[in-house]
């Protein structure tokens, strides 16, 4: 369960990206965050794995007040949150397989067990055949799916995706939406930031969804 209470976020330089945002996400919900470019969607998502910290208010994740969490504890929080970044953050100096196994290496999972899980994740997004390629040789849609595989390899209970379909044409975008709906079905809490109404429409046709709309840092009622 995720709960934002009166969250304010001001960036260095003085810009207020979030102005008193409060909402609750139940377990196994599929939630969209929409709004214009610059509305604060990415900022909102970054507060959950504490990539940014709030200036006032609080963010609770599974009963923990993560906005006041000690730096030491943050890695362990992040291991339970699958993240898909707006700029993907793939490593282009290693193979697809090595990209996916990274979160498991980070936690010290046994290499054999890790390889099994990484292949399972790649299989789920349909990239098992490309495991030896370099991400640079993948098309835009394939790179997006690779980012998803890396986010789910740790079997997180929360999945956060920031514009996972930008740069993709509607066919690829649709496939990726379907993947998120599938994860949501097996009990994962999914939060997706997007400005693409087609994406929301497609997901809503297949599952129960909810949308939060941000306008210049304020949540529409």
């Amino acid at each position, binding site marked *: 369960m995720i709960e934002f209470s009166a969250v304010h976020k001001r960036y260095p330089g003085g810009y207020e990206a979030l102005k008193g945002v409060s909402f609750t996400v139940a377990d196994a919900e599929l939630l969209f965050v929409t709004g214009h470019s610059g509305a604060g969607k990415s900022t909102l998502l970054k507060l959950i794995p504490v990539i940014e910290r709030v200036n006032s208010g609080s963010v609770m994740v599974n009963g923990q007040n993560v906005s006041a969490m000690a730096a030491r504890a943050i*890695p362990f929080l992040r*291991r339970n949150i699958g993240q898909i970044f707006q700029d993907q*953050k793939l*490593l282009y100096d290693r193979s697809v397989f090595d990209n996916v196994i990274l979160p498991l*290496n*980070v936690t010290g999972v046994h290499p054999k067990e890790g390889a099994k899980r990484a292949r399972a994740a790649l299989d789920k997004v349909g990239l098992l055949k490309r495991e030896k390629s370099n991400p640079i040789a993948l098309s835009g849609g394939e790179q997006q799916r690779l980012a998803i595989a890396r986010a789910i390899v740790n079997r997180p209970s929360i999945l956060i995706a920031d514009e996972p379909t930008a740069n993709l044409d509607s066919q690829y975008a649709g496939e990726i939406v379907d993947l998120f709906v599938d994860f949501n079905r097996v009990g994962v809490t999914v939060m997706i930031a997007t400005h693409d109404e087609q994406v929301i429409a497609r997901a809503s046709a297949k599952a129960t969804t909810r949308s939060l709309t941000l306008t210049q840092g304020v949540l529409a009622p």
Partner: protein
Amino acid sequence: MMAWLRLHSMAFAATIAKLARTPFASVLNILVIGVALALPAGAYTLLINLQEAARGVSSDPELSIFLALDAKKDDVAEIDKRLKAEPLVASATYKSREAAFAELKASPALGDVLAALNQNPLPDAFVVRLKMNAADALDRLATGMQAWPKVEHVQVDSAWVRRVAAALKLGQLSVLVLAALLSVALLAVTFNTIRLQILTQRDEIEVSKLLGATDGTIRRPFYYYGALLGLFGGATAALMVWGGISVMNAGVADLARTYASSFSLHMLATGDLLAILAFAASLGWLGAWLSVSRHLREFEPRN
């Protein structure tokens, strides 16, 4: 526990792989560190050798024996007898306190001051010249004499001892200054190298942090890298010193021949070598620590 061990061994393996992947840069860095360490190590080796040489070359060591102020004629005679009986003593010259006082009063610098004294502050003394081969036993002998009756103080103050002491003091000072300067160089090299590593792996570090890597997991490979860099640098330094000594021994042979001596330089003792390696590895670790502490901060989530 198993996971912890695995994290450590993975970090270590990754470090070795990293060194091997950039052989050119690694060799350059190790070379710089090697040179930086070789210089004080080499100088230290030379100093040790000089100390040994000084001990061998010096001839005619001298002792001064100062008697108590209340020593009587009998006491002086007793000391004289004992000195004659001592097999290591080549010759002994008695200088009475009166003669010493007169001599000092005649000196232009102190004459006026001493003339004003109505008491003689100087003791009776013997200047003892020892046999050449007594050089090693010098200290032992002096300690023994110290226990003789009415002996106030025994001073090993012959000219050569003072000269050698001054030269070696100078040498030690130089080695210390050198070691300090070059430790800074070693630190700087590891510091910069680790900074380079961090920059090269910027993306990997950022992504790992986002995926939940602890600070320790991220820092560890850099510490290993720094320590290994230092260690290999230390080994290179040892090799360089060894090579330098070998080359110099050729030159020293020339020099020694003109003195009709068969003097040659020796390598550092194993203990000293190990100390240098340990020192180099620690400095490498420290440089890595400084660099990591300074440069990884960039990846902290800001407030």
